[in-house]
């Protein structure tokens, strides 16, 4: 039996595009195209990619907040895609999500106490004084103070709102947390605080993380293993150190070279990727990256590459290995 807590097998999600007089389905946005991923218990897996690559959709599909069109998601061996709505709602206690937008993720009309206590109420786990006690406990564990209990979200800074979101997500004692760009909207110094908090909680509460971000430095800091996504497909995955030392896919290499390094003595390489990310509606034939790849061959234009196992949990989706 594997020690994978969570596993996605060949997940597919397309979004229909309607148009024309009768709103017929004209085409699809191929947001997630046969993506597989495994996450071991206690790990932090990072998922990195640029906008439009499908990482957000993939995360949501994993949690069935968006229904997958095909494929399976196994949580501790149980295929959650086949659960009934009632069973799924109970399953949600194990898998929670921390959102990117600290402003939008909290109902502006609810007090902090109600926001953090809501999951407990929904699942009938506590009420009255007991609920308040538990909420205060959760608040202190994320660095908030009891006096914040009856305040409203708009009275807090971005970092504090993110803490509220985190407190809410651990209220049900989940074993898995999906962190969707949790620090992208935060200042640098606040980001550091939140990242430290997230790592701290992982140790204390024995959590497993899937951390989605477009920021490679942050991903490297938090992740044990990293998946790189491009236009609906995983193009490379490896352990953190390995990926940065030994990137194989041209896209990974381009991504690494494009990050502005906060050190004025280390000038960036000139590997500038030309062009824009193509639309996921009509992705290029064959290897999706071939129009922007400096090493593309004829084979790349017609045949989709297979996943190559380089050993040591390092996989690449490319013909040229």
């Amino acid at each position, binding site marked *: 039996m594997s020690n994978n807590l969570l596993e996605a097998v060949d997940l597919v999600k397309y979004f229909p595009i309607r148009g024309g007089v009768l709103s017929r389905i004209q085409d699809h946005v191929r947001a997630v195209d046969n993506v597989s991923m495994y996450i071991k218990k206690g790990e932090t897996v990072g998922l990195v990619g640029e906008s439009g690559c499908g990482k957000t959709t993939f995360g949501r599909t994993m949690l069935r907040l968006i229904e997958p069109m095909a494929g399976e998601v196994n949580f501790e061996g149980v295929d959650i895609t086949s659960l009934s709505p009632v069973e799924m709602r109970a399953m949600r206690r194990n898998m929670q999500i921390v959102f990117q937008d600290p402003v939008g993720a909290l109902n502006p009309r609810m007090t902090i106490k109600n926001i953090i206590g809501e999951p407990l109420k929904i699942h009938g786990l506590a009420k009255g004084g007991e609920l308040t006690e538990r909420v205060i406990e959760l608040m202190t564990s994320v660095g908030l103070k009891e006096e914040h209990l009856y305040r409203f979200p708009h009275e807090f800074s971005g970092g*504090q709102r993110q803490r509220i979101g985190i407190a809410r997500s651990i209220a049900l004692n989940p074993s898995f947390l999906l962190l969707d760009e949790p620090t992208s909207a935060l200042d*640098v*110094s606040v980001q550091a605080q939140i990242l430290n908090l997230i790592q701290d909680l992982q140790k204390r509460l024995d959590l497993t993380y899937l951390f989605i971000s477009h920021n490679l430095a942050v991903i490297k*800091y938090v992740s044990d293993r990293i998946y790189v996504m491009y236009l609906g497909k995983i193009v490379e995955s490896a352990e953190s*150190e390995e990926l940065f030392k030994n990137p194989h896919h041209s896209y990974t290499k381009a*991504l690494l070279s494009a990050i502005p*390094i*906060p050190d*004025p003595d280390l000038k960036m390489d000139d590997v500038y990727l030309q062009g*824009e990310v193509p639309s996921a509606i009509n992705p290029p034939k064959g290897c999706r990256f071939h129009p922007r790849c400096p090493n593309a061959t004829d084979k790349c234009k017609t045949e989709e590459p297979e996943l190559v196992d380089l050993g040591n949990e390092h996989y690449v989706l490319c013909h040229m290995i």
Partner: protein
Amino acid sequence: MSEPLLSVKNLKTYFYTYEGVVKALEGVNFKIDKNQIIGLVGETACGKSVTALSIMGLIQDPGKIIDGEIFFDGVNLLKNSKDEMRQIRGKKIAMIFQEPMTSINPMFTIGNQIAEIIMLHEKVGKKEAMGKALEMLKSVKMSDPEEVLKKYPHEMSGGMRQRAMIAMALSCHPQLLIADEPTTFLDVTVQAQILKLMKELAQEIGASVLMITHDMGVVAQMCDEVNVMYAGLVIESAKTREIFHNPKHPYTTGLMKAVPKIVKTNVKLDSIPGTVPNLITPPSGCRFHPRCSHVMDICKEAIPKAVEITPGHRVSCFLYSRRSDDV
């Protein structure tokens, strides 16, 4: 040493709101020389955007510039009339914003908008203006520039829109370009292209750039000098290398340690405790003192004045100056 292109002295901008007076800028000082790229770095509510808007004369009710001087090319902008400022905006000082979708008018084509600015500041007809617009699009390396002239903003990607905005801003060859977080919403690979473009174009036209950002990586790669802002004040300014390798102000040091770096691994991120202060009731004295690990009694009493500790490196901190120091 020639006159600086832009010299901001003791700029104070307050916002008079229902909840109280927001003291957004409490005496900002910095300068920009010709042909330089200067960084203005800081986190939320530090006042960097307010500074940019103050320079452009775009502060509106309930905001007011209550003190200070902004010298641009020898003229104090704060003494200008609205008409005089309108002459300067777009022609001598141009600005690009972080959200290209909302700062470009969605109702008009890109070509029309660039041409409009050209016609506004230079006395030329529409056809000639369109020709110049095309030239601008080519200089920002826009793919298919003839097609783009006829496109609407929503038909373009974020990177293309940002290029269009740069084209608009530089169309009249301004002397100063203010870029307010121009790449925050762009993907990393697109960001790299845009930054490279800005650097090249600025050099070509001979313009200076005020680069407003919170991304230390962008600062390191683009800027010659950096001004670090906190809660409405410039607390440190120096050449880029100095700021990174020799930060003096406790806030700057904290900031450097909080940035996750790819090159150095497994170094635990140091965070600065606490949060950014409320600017309606800011802390007494030095605004950073509640979060500072080196806080002294005097820090709670007065705002430290800037001191030049090495040539070109100025800090506002009582660790380096005494109350009687004056610069």
